[in-house]
């Protein structure tokens, strides 16, 4: 008798928890009420994350420590050369920026101000293998909020989707759930680049067959939607497939950012 009652209690409890789980999933998927739970649990877990990424940190530290003198000298001279080249380019850029501002004034449109950025590093922590998420070591304490864009030195990487006090989760542009508003640099055509769950491919669907697209075309953020500031490099077209029946083309593009290997990233605060 006792056992029967016990078993029934466990079944009811299991049923309750299953319903609770389903309710939580629905709320988490549709609304943002559980974001606070996630942030707090995540904060409590942050020591674990640092513990897990410790070997990677130690590895890079040891690598720096044991670099030989000649290697350092070589690297130094290479960096000097690069800095000279960049400086020369910068001078040109400044002139261009000034000219651009002058032209914009002539046109009467608002001037583009440099974006505010926060430098962050990746925590080497694995997430769900079916998703394209990364953890960075800056959080709300550093001024990061949900929706901020994340870039590396080559292009757009993704956007912040969860924040706690000391770290934040970034959804990469290659996540199947992510869509990036983009624009072709050469033709000015606007479109949306969807992730496909692979770090090397983005997909642009349902472009008109008459659109002016060529392999090698560069894609930049269009700034539509307000999440990503305009004109950051996103991807390069690597394949175009035509759907003759429906008159659409689908474009495959390779992300510019090194989604799977960049360790240092920049988080961009949107200007409002």
């Amino acid at each position, binding site marked *: 008798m006792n056992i029967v009652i016990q*078993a029934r209690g*466990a*079944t009811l*409890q*299991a049923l309750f*928890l*299953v319903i*609770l*789980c*389903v*309710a*939580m*999933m629905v*709320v*988490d*998927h549709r609304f943002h009420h*559980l974001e606070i*739970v*996630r942030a707090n*649990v*995540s904060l409590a*877990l942050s020591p*674990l*994350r640092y*513990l*897990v*990424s410790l070997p*990677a940190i130690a590895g890079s530290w040891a690598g720096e420590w044991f670099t030989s003198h000649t290697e350092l000298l070589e690297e130094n001279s290479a960096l000097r050369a690069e800095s000279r080249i960049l400086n020369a380019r910068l001078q040109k850029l400044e002139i261009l920026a000034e000219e651009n501002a002058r032209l914009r004034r002539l046109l009467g449109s608002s001037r583009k101000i440099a974006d505010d950025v926060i430098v962050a590093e990746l925590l*080497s*922590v*694995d*997430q*769900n*293998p*079916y*998703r394209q*998420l990364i953890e960075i070591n800056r959080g709300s304490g550093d001024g990061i909020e949900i929706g901020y864009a994340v870039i590396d030195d080559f292009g757009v990487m993704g956007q912040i*989707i*969860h924040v706690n006090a000391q770290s934040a*989760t970034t959804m990469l542009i290659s996540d*199947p*759930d992510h869509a990036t508003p983009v624009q072709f640099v050469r033709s000015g055509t606007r479109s949306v680049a969807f992730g496909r*769950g692979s770090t090397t491919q983005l997909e642009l669907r349902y472009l008109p067959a008459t659109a002016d697209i060529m392999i090698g075309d560069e894609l930049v953020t269009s700034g539509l939607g307000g999440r990503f500031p305009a004109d950051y490099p996103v991807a390069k077209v690597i394949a175009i497939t035509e759907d003759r029946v429906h008159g659409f083309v689908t474009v495959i593009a390779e992300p510019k950012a090194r989604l*799977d290997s960049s360790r240092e990233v920049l988080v961009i605060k949107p200007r409002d």
Partner: protein
Amino acid sequence: MSRLRYLVIFLSLLVAVVLAIIPLPEWAQLYRPDWAALVLIYWSMALPKHVGLWFAFFTGIILDVSQGTLLGQHTLALVVIIFINMNFYQRIRVLALAQQSIYVFALLLIDQVLVAWVEGIMGRPTPLLAFFGAPFIGMLIWPWVFVVLRDIRRKAMLSDRA
């Protein structure tokens, strides 16, 4: 006594969560066994009066947060397999380790399918073959998990009676 028991269980679950987020090469990620499920199955077999659905629930929440999945996704799967285990553990824990492994494979497969199912509902279908890798590795690892945790339990002298 009881404080020590919970400390040991918490520490083992903590290790399981660390193993769940420790970086692996990309090809190996699909074969990562669900460590938290293995540890929970062990404890719910060894100390069924103390480790049950609520343990599964809170471990699941921690997994969901650390993996960036929906809150409730791993939780649901863990609650379901621990509930199944609660109904079978008496028959299973007297079996040989190899026979237990097959049972554990079944539980891990249910766990995996439930997690992937929710992914599918959200429009991210997962490849079918990917389902079997992680439970299979989990099955091979089960005897070691069992022996290690049993030794720890005996050292700490934990049993359901105390």
